[in-house]
């Protein structure tokens, strides 16, 4: 057993132990097993990295042939290269912290063992997704994380709406998955294989704008729209907040939802060759970033704000990919994993302290009560707002600089979204942590800082949210961009098909200007939020008192309603019609009338009363008669045939 295989194996074993031992394993052992599995996976990742660093050569680790049919052979194999190593670090690193956090957060839950089992299963699927050496292994992980997401969103499934949210997530993801699957069919069709190395090698021979590749990249991106919650397939993610908060942090912020970005970066040669798809991705990203940010402005559920924020940030990542700044998009995946996991876990800590209250209108003044949570949450807020020198600043700024070069309008829209981001995040922060406490007396008496198993992950993530951006300094700082240097080998294909790839033509002064502009914008947003929510102490109004545009935003542009009207209701109506009318009355009715006609015929001629067995003999007799008829001559056959032929034509 090689070291590489151990990475996904540990979580799988953890899942099996906690899963089979559900209700048998003492509670004190459940968390150590779950956390341990994740930690061992992290350690294996470190060891694999050290080994990989020796040569920096891509490692392919085949396990067995999975599906072999005709000329198609899909192997169950892992691929270790710069990209998968980085993803492995995020997944197992942030994953371990969130497992640790769950020990405290879920400690009072009766489904404690089940929760850790599911978390481990998720890690396993996510690891397959990024470690696979071909698109079908990626697809195993792709659907596997969807399943775990379903199970964890519906974790408290006694509540029917939670179950509905889980189902919605799975079904919407399946819509995307169909696109992905068709992309896979097209890949097989064009390249005869799904193995990354072979596909990318062959793709290099194709011209830019190849129509086949355009379809492939487009279909694969539909999968990304589902998994990474982009317009029009994003409405499942806010509902997914029904799951326990650690799940929101791990799956719906740091890892699973970034699969789409991973997929595009992994396939970068294909996308570089398909500029039309890239343009489409950039605009979808822009639109998503704006729409989600504008909805977040009017949400009052602490997790909902963060959920829309995630959708919006994922949009930024896709903008980066769309303008061919793959590394910038991926850079944002990394920093976002830190600060968004931090914010979600912080929100969980707040909810924990507030006795399960999630409405920020009923919070306030928590700063002095839960110090560690407050400070770390503030760090996360600054980081996402794009203020230097915190992590979000570097990655977002890099994306914005590339967008500026690509398309000024897109850049302006992205800046607008960025402004809204800083505003709603500080709004969230001020309403939650400053001012006076607006909850009940009971809640106030119960206010407490979370146990260390929860605060340690907060602190670690806060540190990462501060320093995480230093892996990618802007060129103008005259410091190394470690990330870009590390990732460089995976763009070998993109460079070979597009000589312009990775070159920036912005002047240094322009870059300083852009950077200054976005920082200024974030500061204005901060000041505005401060004026409204601290200085003027205004509070969001109760639900239903909004009007006009605000109401449209608070009600999420009525997208759910629109989807219900256009997709769900018609299908349900069709189901009822087909099931209760067409199938039973029309089709079966026709058969029945034919049947009773035959039965009457049978009765009349044979006085057949005792049931079907004799009728059976009769029919056999008729059959033989029919055969004799058929054998009278070919003329008869010919005549019958020409009749038939005329019918089908």
């Amino acid at each position: 057993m090689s070291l590489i295989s151990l990475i996904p194996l540990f979580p799988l074993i953890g899942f099996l132990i906690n899963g089979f031992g559900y209700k048998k394993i003492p509670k004190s052992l459940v968390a150590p097993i779950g956390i341990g599995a994740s930690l061992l996976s992290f350690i294996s990742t470190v060891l694999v990295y050290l080994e990989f660093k020796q040569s920096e050569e891509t490692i392919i680790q085949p396990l067995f042939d999975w599906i072999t049919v005709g000329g198609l052979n899909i192997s169950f194999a892992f691929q270790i290269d710069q990209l998968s190593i980085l993803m492995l670090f995020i997944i197992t690193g942030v994953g371990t912290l969130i497992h640790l956090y769950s020990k405290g957060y879920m400690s009072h839950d009766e489904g404690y063992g089940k929760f850790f089992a599911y978390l481990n299963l998720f890690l396993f699927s996510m690891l397959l997704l990024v470690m696979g050496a071909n698109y079908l292994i990626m697809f195993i992980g792709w659907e596997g994380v969807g399943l775990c997401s379903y199970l964890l969103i519906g974790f408290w499934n006694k509540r029917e709406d939670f179950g509905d949210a889980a189902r919605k997530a799975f079904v919407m993801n399946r819509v995307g998955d169909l696109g992905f699957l068709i992309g896979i069919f097209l890949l097989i069709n064009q390249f005869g294989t799904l193995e990354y190395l072979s596909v990318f090698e062959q793709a290099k021979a194709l011209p830019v704008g190849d129509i086949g590749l355009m379809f492939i990249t487009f279909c694969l991106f539909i999968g990304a729209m589902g998994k990474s919650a982009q317009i029009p397939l994003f409405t499942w993610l806010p509902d997914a907040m029904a799951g326990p908060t650690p799940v929101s942090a791990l799956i719906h912020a740091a890892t699973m939802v970034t699969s789409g970005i991973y997929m595009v970066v992994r396939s970068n040669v294909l996308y570089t060759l398909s500029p039309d798809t890239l343009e489409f991705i950039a605009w979808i990203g822009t639109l998503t970033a704006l729409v989600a940010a504008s909805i977040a402005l009017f949400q009052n559920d602490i997790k909902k704000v963060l959920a829309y924020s995630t959708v919006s940030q994922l949009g930024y990542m896709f903008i980066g990919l769309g303008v061919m700044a793959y590394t910038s998009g991926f850079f944002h995946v990394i920093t976002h994993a830190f600060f968004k996991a931090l914010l979600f876990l912080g929100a969980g800590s707040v909810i924990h302290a507030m006795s399960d209250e999630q409405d920020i209108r009923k919070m306030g003044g928590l700063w002095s009560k839960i110090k560690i949570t407050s400070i770390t949450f503030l760090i996360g807020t600054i980081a996402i707002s794009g203020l230097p020198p915190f992590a979000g600043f570097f990655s977002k700024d890099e994306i914005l600089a590339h967008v500026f070069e690509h398309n000024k309008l897109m850049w302006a829209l992205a800046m607008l979204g960025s402004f809204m981001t800083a505003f709603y995040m500080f709004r969230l922060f001020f309403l939650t942590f400053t001012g006076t406490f607006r909850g009940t007396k009971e809640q106030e008496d119960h206010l407490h800082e979370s146990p260390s198993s929860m605060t340690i992950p907060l602190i670690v993530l806060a540190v990462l949210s501060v320093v995480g951006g230093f892996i990618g300094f802007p060129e103008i700082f005259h410091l190394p961009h470690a990330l870009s240097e590390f990732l460089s080998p995976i763009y070998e294909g993109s460079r070979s098909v597009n000589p312009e790839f990775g070159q920036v033509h912005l002047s240094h002064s322009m870059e300083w200007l852009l950077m200054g502009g976005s920082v200024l914008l974030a500061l204005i947003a901060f000041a505005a939020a401060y004026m409204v929510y601290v200085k003027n102490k205004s509070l969001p109004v109760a639900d239903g008192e909004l009007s006009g545009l605000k109401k449209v935003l608070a009600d999420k542009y009525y997208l759910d309603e629109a989807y219900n009207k256009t997709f769900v209701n018609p299908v349900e109506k069709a189901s009822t019609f087909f099931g209760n009318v067409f199938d039973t009355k029309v089709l079966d009715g026709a058969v029945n009338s034919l049947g009773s006609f035959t039965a009457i015929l049978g009765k009349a001629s044979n006085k057949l009363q005792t049931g079907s067995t004799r009728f059976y003999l009769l029919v056999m007799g008729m059959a033989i008669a029919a055969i004799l008829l058929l054998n009278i001559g070919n003329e008869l056959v010919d005549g019958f045939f020409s009749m038939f032929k005329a019918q089908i034509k």
Partner: protein
Amino acid sequence: MFLLLLLLIPLVGALLSFVIGRNEASAKSVAIASSLLSLGVFIYAAAQFTSGSTEIFSFAKPWIASAGLNFKFSADGISVLLLALTSVLVPLIVLSAADKGREKSNVFYSLVLFTQFTLVGVFTAGDLFLFYFFFEAALVPVYFLIINWGGENAPKSAFKMFIYTIFGSLLMLAAMVFLYTKGQTADLEALKSTAALMPAKVQMLLFGAFIIAFAIKMPLFPFHTWQPNAYTDSPATATMLLSGLLSKMGVFGLIRIALPMAPLAANEYAMIVTLLAIVGLIYGSVIAIKQDDIKRLIAYSSFAHMGLMAAGVLSGSVEGIQGAVFQMLAHGVNAVGLFYVAKIIFDRTGTRSLSQLGGISQQAPVLSVLFMIILLGSVALPLTNGFVGEFLMLKAVFEFDKLIGVIAGLSIILGAVYMLRLFQNTMFGEVKDSQLIIADVTGLERLVLVIISGIVLIMGVFPNVILKVSEPAAVTLLDYLSSI
């Protein structure tokens, strides 16, 4: 020799069970022993088969030599896999039958074993008329199972199924006799050369006759209306036999009879049949979404899945045929599992209505986990058995026609919709009747479900073990078709 044993064991078992099984317990014991013996013989034989020799898998004795009729049984890779399915499912179906309050157990188990006998016959027949005999005979024991042990409407549903099937058989028999008189032999191998030389228009007619017979059996749209009622009103054992095994006779018939006996027509008709199959796939899936009766929901889902198999076979590609063969096994196992879960739920709650169920997972977590695994197989999640077949078939249909392929692909979304609704409304939510104590699965129930879930996962992780067995047969068939 092994084929003869596989045929005779269930036949003798059926007789023994009928004669000595006057008291309930011994009838079931005989059935278990017989079906396990079949399984044992099959495993022993299969071990020989995979090691290369196909000789043991054929058996021929002249019957009416002057008329060119033989008792000929032979098995290629596809047959072997269907024998595997039969040999594995029958013991599970026997084990899953609960005897509480059943009368005439000896007849009951005798009929089950007799069904196994006919299935082995269908899957190994090397002669047209043997195929016909077993194909028809399979219906009889299931018919009696339904009318004697089914629900209120069972006789009516069974009768409709009976008439419907016979109608199809009539056409098939006509086609077969015609083939026989032309070729002066009923040997399936020997007839190929006759069939290949037949004019296209004659082949069109022959294929039309065959396809209707098999379409009714599977069933395919629009010949399916007997199926939802028959599946719903039948006793669980008969539903499992029908959905798990008998429906596969239709797909098998396409592969073994319709394609080789009318190769030119198969190509000509491919579009029409594929269209009908995909219409059925979507139509059945859409109907399943709003069904309230668990069994009816699974019945429509089952009907939908059959459509894709037919489309796979007719796609004329090795992926399509291999996918369909794989899916026959996967669907057989999953359908039996799902109908068994439906029965377990009904036994405990007294209802199959989704609107009256809920919260079962709280009291029966083991049941809910095993149900979930089988369900994942059914929605074709990767690493379960449902994925491999659907992946290959969808790819084949997509290559056949891009648009039809995309439409067929919608079924993976619809499948998730109705299956997760089934799961949510039974397992999640609050218990509707708070007095009701729902016992978790234990003992035999648990054993059967664990075996089925195990198969779901093993087939999904190591599909090549199965794909390799049928690949030569699939390639041979395609080579033959393309040589015409």
